[in-house]
Protein backbone atom coordinates (compact mmCIF):
# COMPACT_ATOMS: atom_id res chain seq x y z
CA UNK A 1 0.00 0.00 0.00
CA UNK A 2 1.19 3.46 -0.84
CA UNK A 3 2.59 5.09 2.36
CA UNK A 4 0.40 8.18 1.97
CA UNK A 5 -2.79 6.11 1.62
CA UNK A 6 -1.69 3.95 4.52
CA UNK A 7 -1.31 7.07 6.63
CA UNK A 8 -4.79 8.27 5.65
CA UNK A 9 -6.25 4.83 6.37
CA UNK A 10 -4.73 4.94 9.86
CA UNK A 11 -6.23 8.42 10.32
CA UNK A 12 -9.69 7.13 9.33
CA UNK A 13 -9.46 4.17 11.73
CA UNK A 14 -8.23 6.54 14.43
CA UNK A 15 -11.26 8.85 13.95
CA UNK A 16 -13.69 5.94 14.26
CA UNK A 17 -12.00 4.46 17.35
CA UNK A 18 -11.64 7.80 19.18
CA UNK A 19 -15.26 8.77 18.44
CA UNK A 20 -16.51 5.36 19.62
CA UNK A 21 -14.46 5.43 22.83
CA UNK A 22 -15.57 9.01 23.60
CA UNK A 23 -19.24 8.19 23.06
CA UNK A 24 -18.89 4.94 25.03
CA UNK A 25 -17.40 6.79 28.02
CA UNK A 26 -20.12 9.46 27.97
CA UNK A 27 -22.93 6.92 27.76
CA UNK A 28 -21.30 4.81 30.47
CA UNK A 29 -21.06 7.82 32.78
CA UNK A 30 -24.69 8.74 32.10
CA UNK A 31 -26.02 5.18 32.15
CA UNK A 32 -28.52 5.77 34.96
CA UNK A 33 -29.82 8.92 33.23
CA UNK A 34 -30.21 7.06 29.97
CA UNK A 35 -32.49 4.49 31.60
CA UNK A 36 -36.05 5.57 30.96
CA UNK A 37 -37.31 4.29 34.30
CA UNK A 38 -36.30 2.85 37.66
CA UNK A 39 -36.91 -0.84 38.31
CA UNK A 40 -38.92 -1.67 41.47
CA UNK A 41 -35.76 -3.16 43.07
CA UNK A 42 -34.00 0.20 42.71
CA UNK A 43 -36.98 1.97 44.27
CA UNK A 44 -37.11 -0.43 47.21
CA UNK A 45 -33.34 -0.17 47.68
CA UNK A 46 -33.69 3.60 47.91
CA UNK A 47 -31.78 4.39 44.69
CA UNK A 48 -34.69 6.38 43.26
CA UNK A 49 -35.06 9.99 44.49
CA UNK A 50 -38.26 10.76 46.42
CA UNK A 51 -40.28 13.93 45.92
CA UNK A 52 -39.24 14.49 42.30
CA UNK A 53 -40.65 13.39 38.96
CA UNK A 54 -39.35 9.93 38.05
CA UNK A 55 -40.53 6.88 36.14
CA UNK A 56 -41.00 3.38 37.50
CA UNK A 57 -41.38 0.43 35.16
CA UNK A 58 -42.02 -3.27 35.45
CA UNK A 59 -44.49 -6.09 34.99
CA UNK A 60 -48.00 -5.49 36.33
CA UNK A 61 -48.62 -8.19 38.97
CA UNK A 62 -51.49 -10.60 38.35
CA UNK A 63 -54.70 -9.80 40.30
CA UNK A 64 -53.16 -6.57 41.62
CA UNK A 65 -55.25 -4.11 39.58
CA UNK A 66 -57.93 -2.51 41.79
CA UNK A 67 -60.26 0.06 40.24
CA UNK A 68 -61.98 2.46 42.64
CA UNK A 69 -65.77 2.20 42.24
CA UNK A 70 -67.29 5.21 40.50
CA UNK A 71 -63.94 6.82 39.69
CA UNK A 72 -60.92 6.69 37.45
CA UNK A 73 -58.51 5.83 40.24
CA UNK A 74 -56.59 2.61 39.74
CA UNK A 75 -54.10 0.92 42.02
CA UNK A 76 -51.75 -1.82 40.88
CA UNK A 77 -48.36 -3.30 41.70
CA UNK A 78 -45.37 -3.46 39.36
CA UNK A 79 -42.58 -5.97 39.81
CA UNK A 80 -39.18 -6.83 38.35
CA UNK A 81 -39.04 -10.19 40.12
CA UNK A 82 -37.49 -9.58 43.55
CA UNK A 83 -39.37 -6.36 44.46
CA UNK A 84 -42.77 -4.72 44.02
CA UNK A 85 -43.98 -1.13 44.07
CA UNK A 86 -47.59 -0.03 44.59
CA UNK A 87 -48.72 2.50 41.98
CA UNK A 88 -51.78 4.74 42.26
CA UNK A 89 -53.02 6.43 39.12
CA UNK A 90 -56.05 8.56 38.29
CA UNK A 91 -56.86 8.71 34.60
CA UNK A 92 -57.41 6.66 31.49
CA UNK A 93 -55.08 3.70 30.99
CA UNK A 94 -53.78 2.71 27.54
CA UNK A 95 -55.58 -0.19 25.78
CA UNK A 96 -52.63 -2.53 26.12
CA UNK A 97 -52.31 -2.02 29.87
CA UNK A 98 -53.05 -5.25 31.71
CA UNK A 99 -51.93 -7.91 34.14
CA UNK A 100 -48.67 -9.66 33.26
CA UNK A 101 -47.91 -6.88 30.80
CA UNK A 102 -45.13 -4.37 31.26
CA UNK A 103 -46.01 -0.76 32.12
CA UNK A 104 -44.07 2.45 32.75
CA UNK A 105 -45.51 4.99 35.20
CA UNK A 106 -44.41 8.64 35.49
CA UNK A 107 -44.94 10.37 38.81
CA UNK A 108 -43.63 10.84 42.28
CA UNK A 109 -42.43 8.54 45.02
CA UNK A 110 -44.35 9.14 48.27
CA UNK A 111 -42.70 8.99 51.73
CA UNK A 112 -44.59 5.74 52.45
CA UNK A 113 -42.89 4.03 49.48
CA UNK A 114 -45.92 4.02 47.17
CA UNK A 115 -45.84 5.71 43.80
CA UNK A 116 -48.38 8.31 42.63
CA UNK A 117 -48.47 8.34 38.84
CA UNK A 118 -49.55 11.16 36.55
CA UNK A 119 -49.08 9.09 33.39
CA UNK A 120 -49.06 5.35 32.74
CA UNK A 121 -47.72 3.92 29.47
CA UNK A 122 -48.03 0.31 28.33
CA UNK A 123 -44.82 -1.35 27.20
CA UNK A 124 -45.24 -3.87 24.43
CA UNK A 125 -43.03 -6.96 24.27
CA UNK A 126 -41.24 -8.23 21.17
CA UNK A 127 -43.65 -11.13 20.58
CA UNK A 128 -46.16 -11.06 17.78
CA UNK A 129 -48.78 -13.76 17.48
CA UNK A 130 -52.14 -14.23 15.75
CA UNK A 131 -55.17 -14.45 18.13
CA UNK A 132 -55.91 -18.08 17.15
CA UNK A 133 -52.45 -19.14 18.25
CA UNK A 134 -52.80 -17.33 21.59
CA UNK A 135 -56.20 -18.95 22.15
CA UNK A 136 -54.77 -22.38 21.36
CA UNK A 137 -51.88 -21.77 23.74
CA UNK A 138 -54.21 -20.63 26.52
CA UNK A 139 -56.42 -23.70 26.03
CA UNK A 140 -53.38 -26.00 26.16
CA UNK A 141 -52.26 -24.27 29.36
CA UNK A 142 -55.73 -24.73 30.95
CA UNK A 143 -55.72 -28.40 29.97
CA UNK A 144 -52.31 -28.85 31.51
CA UNK A 145 -53.64 -27.21 34.69
CA UNK A 146 -56.73 -29.45 34.78
CA UNK A 147 -54.67 -32.60 34.18
CA UNK A 148 -52.59 -31.78 37.22
CA UNK A 149 -54.10 -33.34 40.42
Amino acid sequence: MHPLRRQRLIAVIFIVIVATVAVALVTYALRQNINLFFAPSQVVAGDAPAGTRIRVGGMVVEDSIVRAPGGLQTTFRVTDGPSEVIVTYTGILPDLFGENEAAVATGQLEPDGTFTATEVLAKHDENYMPPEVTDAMNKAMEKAHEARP
Partner: protein
Amino acid sequence: MARTRPLLPEWFHRLGSPKGFYQMTSSWMPWLAVTAAVLLLVGTVWGLGFAPQDAKQGNSFRIIYIHVPAAFLALAGYYVMAAAGAIGLVWKMKLAHMVMKAAAPLGAALTLISLVTGSLWGKPTWGTYWVWDARITSMLVLFFLYLGVIALHYAYTNGEAASKASAVLALVGTANIPIIYKSVDWWYTLHQPATIKLTQAPSMHPDMFYPLLVMIAGFYCFYALVLLLNTRSEILHRERRTRWVLDMAEGGRS
Protein backbone atom coordinates in the same frame (compact mmCIF):
# COMPACT_ATOMS: atom_id res chain seq x y z
CA MET B 1 8.58 -14.62 -18.42
CA ALA B 2 5.27 -14.56 -16.64
CA ARG B 3 3.48 -11.21 -16.58
CA THR B 4 2.29 -10.12 -13.15
CA ARG B 5 -1.47 -10.46 -12.98
CA PRO B 6 -3.41 -7.39 -11.90
CA LEU B 7 -4.78 -7.62 -8.37
CA LEU B 8 -8.34 -6.79 -9.36
CA PRO B 9 -10.21 -7.64 -12.56
CA GLU B 10 -10.57 -5.01 -15.27
CA TRP B 11 -14.33 -4.43 -14.72
CA PHE B 12 -13.64 -3.46 -11.12
CA HIS B 13 -11.39 -0.60 -12.18
CA ARG B 14 -13.98 0.45 -14.76
CA LEU B 15 -16.62 0.53 -12.01
CA GLY B 16 -14.37 2.84 -10.01
CA SER B 17 -14.40 5.66 -12.55
CA PRO B 18 -17.52 7.84 -12.70
CA LYS B 19 -17.92 7.27 -16.43
CA GLY B 20 -17.46 3.51 -16.21
CA PHE B 21 -19.83 3.34 -13.23
CA TYR B 22 -22.50 5.30 -15.08
CA GLN B 23 -22.26 3.10 -18.15
CA MET B 24 -22.13 -0.21 -16.26
CA THR B 25 -25.06 0.59 -13.95
CA SER B 26 -27.33 1.69 -16.83
CA SER B 27 -28.27 -1.91 -17.58
CA TRP B 28 -28.88 -2.73 -13.88
CA MET B 29 -31.50 -0.06 -13.34
CA PRO B 30 -34.57 -1.70 -14.96
CA TRP B 31 -33.86 -5.02 -13.20
CA LEU B 32 -33.49 -3.38 -9.82
CA ALA B 33 -36.62 -1.30 -10.35
CA VAL B 34 -38.73 -4.31 -11.31
CA THR B 35 -37.39 -6.46 -8.44
CA ALA B 36 -37.98 -3.70 -5.89
CA ALA B 37 -41.50 -2.99 -7.20
CA VAL B 38 -42.50 -6.68 -7.19
CA LEU B 39 -41.09 -7.35 -3.70
CA LEU B 40 -42.65 -4.20 -2.21
CA LEU B 41 -46.01 -4.89 -3.84
CA VAL B 42 -46.10 -8.56 -2.78
CA GLY B 43 -44.90 -7.69 0.72
CA THR B 44 -47.42 -4.87 1.17
CA VAL B 45 -50.43 -6.87 -0.06
CA TRP B 46 -49.36 -9.95 1.92
CA GLY B 47 -48.55 -8.01 5.08
CA LEU B 48 -51.55 -5.65 5.08
CA GLY B 49 -54.13 -7.96 3.52
CA PHE B 50 -53.34 -11.56 4.37
CA ALA B 51 -51.10 -11.75 7.44
CA PRO B 52 -53.13 -12.50 10.59
CA GLN B 53 -53.71 -9.67 13.05
CA ASP B 54 -51.85 -9.56 16.34
CA ALA B 55 -53.58 -10.98 19.42
CA LYS B 56 -52.91 -7.89 21.56
CA GLN B 57 -52.50 -5.01 19.13
CA GLY B 58 -55.00 -6.01 16.47
CA ASN B 59 -54.34 -4.42 13.11
CA SER B 60 -52.12 -1.59 14.33
CA PHE B 61 -49.13 -3.96 14.41
CA ARG B 62 -49.14 -3.91 10.58
CA ILE B 63 -47.12 -0.70 10.61
CA ILE B 64 -44.18 -3.04 11.32
CA TYR B 65 -44.07 -3.81 7.59
CA ILE B 66 -42.92 -0.24 6.93
CA HIS B 67 -41.30 0.65 10.27
CA VAL B 68 -38.82 -2.22 10.63
CA PRO B 69 -37.54 -2.30 7.00
CA ALA B 70 -37.14 1.51 7.04
CA ALA B 71 -35.22 1.37 10.33
CA PHE B 72 -33.03 -1.49 9.04
CA LEU B 73 -32.03 0.50 5.97
CA ALA B 74 -31.59 3.71 7.94
CA LEU B 75 -28.89 1.93 10.00
CA ALA B 76 -27.36 -0.14 7.17
CA GLY B 77 -27.41 2.94 4.94
CA TYR B 78 -25.38 4.85 7.49
CA TYR B 79 -22.61 2.27 7.19
CA VAL B 80 -22.84 2.52 3.39
CA MET B 81 -22.43 6.30 3.68
CA ALA B 82 -19.56 6.10 6.21
CA ALA B 83 -17.73 3.37 4.27
CA ALA B 84 -18.01 5.41 1.06
CA GLY B 85 -16.69 8.43 2.97
CA ALA B 86 -13.73 6.41 4.30
CA ILE B 87 -12.87 5.07 0.84
CA GLY B 88 -13.08 8.61 -0.54
CA LEU B 89 -10.78 9.92 2.18
CA VAL B 90 -8.15 7.19 1.89
CA TRP B 91 -8.05 6.56 -1.86
CA LYS B 92 -9.14 10.06 -2.98
CA MET B 93 -11.78 8.39 -5.09
CA LYS B 94 -14.29 10.83 -6.60
CA LEU B 95 -16.95 8.18 -7.09
CA ALA B 96 -16.89 7.22 -3.39
CA HIS B 97 -17.56 10.84 -2.42
CA MET B 98 -20.48 10.92 -4.84
CA VAL B 99 -21.94 7.72 -3.31
CA MET B 100 -21.60 9.28 0.15
CA LYS B 101 -23.41 12.43 -0.95
CA ALA B 102 -26.13 10.30 -2.59
CA ALA B 103 -26.63 8.16 0.53
CA ALA B 104 -27.22 11.05 2.96
CA PRO B 105 -30.70 12.30 1.91
CA LEU B 106 -31.87 8.72 1.35
CA GLY B 107 -30.80 7.71 4.85
CA ALA B 108 -32.37 10.82 6.34
CA ALA B 109 -35.68 10.03 4.62
CA LEU B 110 -35.66 6.42 5.88
CA THR B 111 -34.84 7.55 9.43
CA LEU B 112 -37.70 10.04 9.33
CA ILE B 113 -40.07 7.33 8.05
CA SER B 114 -39.14 4.99 10.90
CA LEU B 115 -39.49 7.81 13.48
CA VAL B 116 -42.90 8.88 12.16
CA THR B 117 -44.31 5.36 11.76
CA GLY B 118 -43.03 4.42 15.22
CA SER B 119 -44.66 7.50 16.68
CA LEU B 120 -48.00 6.74 14.99
CA TRP B 121 -47.84 3.18 16.36
CA GLY B 122 -46.78 4.39 19.80
CA LYS B 123 -49.97 6.36 20.42
CA PRO B 124 -52.41 3.41 20.30
CA THR B 125 -49.91 0.92 21.79
CA TRP B 126 -47.98 2.77 24.48
CA GLY B 127 -50.34 5.66 24.98
CA THR B 128 -47.95 8.37 23.77
CA TYR B 129 -46.51 9.59 20.49
CA TRP B 130 -43.07 10.27 21.86
CA VAL B 131 -40.91 9.34 24.81
CA TRP B 132 -37.24 10.19 25.35
CA ASP B 133 -35.99 6.65 25.75
CA ALA B 134 -32.56 5.48 24.52
CA ARG B 135 -33.79 3.87 21.30
CA ILE B 136 -35.94 6.75 20.12
CA THR B 137 -33.47 9.45 21.16
CA SER B 138 -30.50 7.71 19.49
CA MET B 139 -32.62 7.33 16.36
CA LEU B 140 -33.31 11.06 16.44
CA VAL B 141 -29.54 11.64 16.77
CA LEU B 142 -29.09 9.49 13.64
CA PHE B 143 -31.55 11.75 11.81
CA PHE B 144 -29.57 14.83 12.85
CA LEU B 145 -26.29 13.15 11.78
CA TYR B 146 -27.73 12.56 8.32
CA LEU B 147 -28.93 16.18 8.19
CA GLY B 148 -25.47 17.31 9.36
CA VAL B 149 -23.76 15.42 6.54
CA ILE B 150 -26.16 16.99 4.03
CA ALA B 151 -25.69 20.48 5.52
CA LEU B 152 -21.87 20.20 5.56
CA HIS B 153 -21.92 19.41 1.87
CA TYR B 154 -23.71 22.66 1.15
CA ALA B 155 -21.64 24.69 3.63
CA TYR B 156 -18.55 24.50 1.39
CA THR B 157 -18.22 25.94 -2.08
CA ASN B 158 -15.13 23.80 -2.67
CA GLY B 159 -16.28 20.30 -3.60
CA GLU B 160 -13.28 18.45 -2.20
CA ALA B 161 -13.35 20.24 1.15
CA ALA B 162 -17.09 19.53 1.40
CA SER B 163 -16.56 15.83 0.77
CA LYS B 164 -13.71 15.61 3.28
CA ALA B 165 -15.61 17.40 6.06
CA SER B 166 -18.79 15.40 5.63
CA ALA B 167 -16.83 12.13 5.41
CA VAL B 168 -15.22 12.90 8.78
CA LEU B 169 -18.64 13.69 10.30
CA ALA B 170 -20.06 10.47 8.82
CA LEU B 171 -17.18 8.48 10.35
CA VAL B 172 -17.61 10.07 13.79
CA GLY B 173 -21.32 9.28 13.66
CA THR B 174 -20.69 5.54 13.24
CA ALA B 175 -20.30 5.43 17.05
CA ASN B 176 -24.09 5.93 17.24
CA ILE B 177 -25.05 2.83 15.21
CA PRO B 178 -24.20 0.14 17.81
CA ILE B 179 -25.89 2.35 20.41
CA ILE B 180 -29.14 2.42 18.45
CA TYR B 181 -28.94 -1.31 17.81
CA LYS B 182 -28.16 -2.34 21.40
CA SER B 183 -29.98 0.47 23.26
CA VAL B 184 -32.97 -1.76 24.03
CA ASP B 185 -30.70 -4.32 25.69
CA TRP B 186 -28.30 -1.97 27.49
CA TRP B 187 -30.84 0.34 29.13
CA TYR B 188 -34.45 0.34 30.32
CA THR B 189 -36.43 1.64 27.36
CA LEU B 190 -40.08 1.82 26.41
CA HIS B 191 -39.23 0.42 22.98
CA GLN B 192 -39.36 -3.38 22.95
CA PRO B 193 -36.24 -5.49 22.23
CA ALA B 194 -35.59 -6.80 18.73
CA THR B 195 -38.11 -9.29 17.29
CA ILE B 196 -35.73 -10.44 14.55
CA LYS B 197 -32.55 -11.73 16.12
CA LEU B 198 -29.30 -12.71 14.48
CA THR B 199 -28.77 -15.93 16.42
CA GLN B 200 -32.29 -17.02 17.43
CA ALA B 201 -35.59 -17.69 15.72
CA PRO B 202 -37.75 -14.55 15.41
CA SER B 203 -40.28 -14.06 18.22
CA MET B 204 -43.03 -13.68 15.66
CA HIS B 205 -45.43 -16.12 14.06
CA PRO B 206 -44.18 -17.32 10.62
CA ASP B 207 -47.41 -16.10 8.93
CA MET B 208 -46.49 -12.58 10.07
CA PHE B 209 -42.73 -12.98 9.63
CA TYR B 210 -42.52 -14.04 5.96
CA PRO B 211 -44.20 -10.91 4.58
CA LEU B 212 -41.85 -8.88 6.78
CA LEU B 213 -38.85 -10.65 5.21
CA VAL B 214 -40.23 -9.87 1.75
CA MET B 215 -40.62 -6.21 2.72
CA ILE B 216 -37.05 -6.06 4.08
CA ALA B 217 -35.71 -7.57 0.83
CA GLY B 218 -37.84 -5.08 -1.11
CA PHE B 219 -36.51 -2.16 0.91
CA TYR B 220 -32.92 -3.30 0.27
CA CYS B 221 -33.59 -3.37 -3.49
CA PHE B 222 -35.36 -0.01 -3.29
CA TYR B 223 -32.43 1.42 -1.35
CA ALA B 224 -29.94 0.17 -3.97
CA LEU B 225 -32.12 1.58 -6.74
CA VAL B 226 -32.45 5.06 -5.23
CA LEU B 227 -28.77 5.13 -4.20
CA LEU B 228 -27.77 4.36 -7.79
CA LEU B 229 -30.21 6.95 -9.17
CA ASN B 230 -28.85 9.62 -6.82
CA THR B 231 -25.24 8.68 -7.57
CA ARG B 232 -25.84 8.69 -11.33
CA SER B 233 -27.41 12.12 -11.25
CA GLU B 234 -24.51 13.35 -9.09
CA ILE B 235 -22.05 11.92 -11.66
CA LEU B 236 -23.79 13.73 -14.51
CA HIS B 237 -23.85 16.95 -12.50
CA ARG B 238 -20.15 16.87 -11.59
CA GLU B 239 -18.99 15.69 -15.02
CA ARG B 240 -21.36 17.92 -16.97
CA ARG B 241 -18.49 19.63 -18.81
CA THR B 242 -16.74 16.42 -19.88
CA ARG B 243 -16.80 15.03 -23.40
CA TRP B 244 -18.71 11.82 -22.61
CA VAL B 245 -21.58 13.57 -20.85
CA LEU B 246 -21.85 16.19 -23.58
CA ASP B 247 -21.78 13.46 -26.24
CA MET B 248 -24.52 11.57 -24.43
CA ALA B 249 -26.63 14.72 -24.09
CA GLU B 250 -26.16 15.44 -27.82
CA GLY B 251 -27.11 11.87 -28.67
CA GLY B 252 -30.21 12.05 -26.52
CA ARG B 253 -31.33 15.32 -28.09
CA SER B 254 -31.15 14.18 -31.73
